[in-house]
């Protein structure tokens, strides 16, 4: 993987401001460049506008001021999204859920069947394709959600605290698998989290945000090369990065108070 400085930009947010109801400033003067291949974590306390950033990027919301530019003039239509909840259709099987992005683009199931099988295999759910979501555990539902986000091989995947509701053991496992997945499909990830540990383990860039108004106050680089495995969690390097990120987050919380 190329070093961060050498990566071409994928999208640039410049001087973004987002106000709600006239007086609540969710984001103020936010600048952020996301490069191709980044695993970028947005780390910050509640209310710092992390989720707002994702909603702006996915075009569900428009900035009050400032603009978002995509490299090559491309829009937000090449996206995968994972929410905090698995957000599956309870009436559809696992395979039908993963088929959704293709279905909405008007592709027949037969044509994309192989892609769906491949995505389910990558998240380790190949034998569950005919199950309904209610039959799955929380972690498995989240895997389906991830499979759905990556099945179209989008250039950018947005993840909004996807593992926050899971237990720690399941979360660690999914963290490991997510890194393998990213390597397998070679995409860019923006990952919103409030966990320092998760951000250090997963990402190569950590953008720390403060609240009221939401803004970027620090950016850290985690230069440990991928692939990272379970032993990274116990390394001195990990401890050092975690300390730096914790200090930055502490500052973010202190500024808000």
């Amino acid at each position: 993987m190329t070093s961060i400085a050498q990566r071409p930009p994928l999208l640039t947010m410049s001087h973004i401001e987002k106000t709600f109801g006239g007086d609540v400033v969710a984001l103020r003067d936010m600048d952020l460049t996301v490069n191709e291949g980044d695993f970028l974590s947005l780390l910050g306390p509640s209310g710092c506008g992390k989720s707002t950033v994702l909603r702006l990027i996915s075009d569900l919301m428009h900035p009050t001021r400032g603009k978002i530019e995509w490299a090559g003039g491309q829009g937000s239509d090449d996206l995968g999204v994972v929410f905090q909840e698995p957000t599956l259709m309870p009436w559809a099987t696992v395979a039908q859920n993963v088929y959704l992005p293709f279905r909405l683009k008007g592709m027949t199931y037969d044509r994309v069947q192989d892609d769906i099988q491949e995505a389910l295999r990558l998240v380790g759910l190949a034998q569950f394709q005919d199950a309904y979501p209610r039959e799955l555990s929380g972690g498995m539902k989240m895997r389906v959600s991830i499979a759905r986000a990556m099945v179209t091989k989008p250039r950018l995947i947005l993840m909004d605290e996807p593992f926050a509701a899971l237990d720690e053991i399941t979360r660690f496992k999914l963290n490991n698998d997510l890194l393998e997945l990213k390597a397998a499909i070679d995409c860019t990830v923006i990952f919103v989290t409030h966990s320092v540990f998760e951000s250090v383990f997963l990402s190569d860039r950590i953008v720390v945000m403060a609240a009221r108004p939401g803004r970027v106050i620090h950016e850290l680089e985690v230069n440990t090369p991928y692939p990272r495995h379970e032993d990274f969690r116990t390394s001195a390097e990990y401890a050092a990065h975690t300390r730096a990120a914790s200090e930055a987050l502490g500052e973010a919380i202190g500024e808000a108070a």
Partner: protein
Amino acid sequence: MTIADQAPVAPVVDEEEAARARKDRIHRVAKWTLPSLVMVLSVLAWHLYVTLNEVPHYILPGPLVVAQSIFDDWGLLWPAMLTTTRLTVLALIFAIIGGVALAVAFTQSKWAEMSFFPYAVILQVTPVIAIAPLLQIYMDSAFGAALACAWIVAFFPILSNTTIGLKSADHNLEDLFTIYGASRWQRLRYLAAPSALPFFLGGLKIAGGLALIGAVVAEFVIGRAGTGLGLASTLLEASYRFNFGRLYAALILISGMGVVIFAITSLISHLALRKWHESAMMRER
């Protein structure tokens, strides 16, 4: 607990589970036998009351008289039942078509909802018995007028439940559909409609019963003019003639129809939802 504590034979069924299994077996049997027993005992008590007190037929006919009536008057009751059934089923079908179509229109267009929803409510809250005589005047066919009455009554629960259902889709899924650039039709077909299904089926169960009630009320009001509509008209006529055996026979058949309608709509609901919806799930205690 050490390994030695556990019996190495067979799967372990502890006392609690055994007790639960026993209770389940008893419940399964009791579910059918108890109501049947109550039925038999009530009919018996009815019979004894009538015969021991020598209650005259025109006050309370005994069960034997009613049974005899069903048998003797079958040639009269059966066509009447067919008419009432046709009335009820057609009213329900039109209620489904109208209710679902209007619900879709309401959710597709805020303007349509704002303009017409208050009138749907007014139609619903005006007692149908008060509209029936008017319908009878304006419509040539008694059957048509009765059908309109039954339709008005059955239509609202379908409309209101389906409207709520169509709006009840998961917000994150809504966002996902937006991100993937779903068309209006795709959103309706793949998100709103399946989300609405449990609500619609709940409305259907209510509407099925109401369609029958609407049909009965309409027959009472409209069938009175000697048009001889269905079972309810037969019932009313029997009451004028003090033919209480026939009256009870008609009443029992109407109740039977209600039970059948409920059973059919419940079965449809169960079949449609059993794979995924909580309401149709067996829960592990």
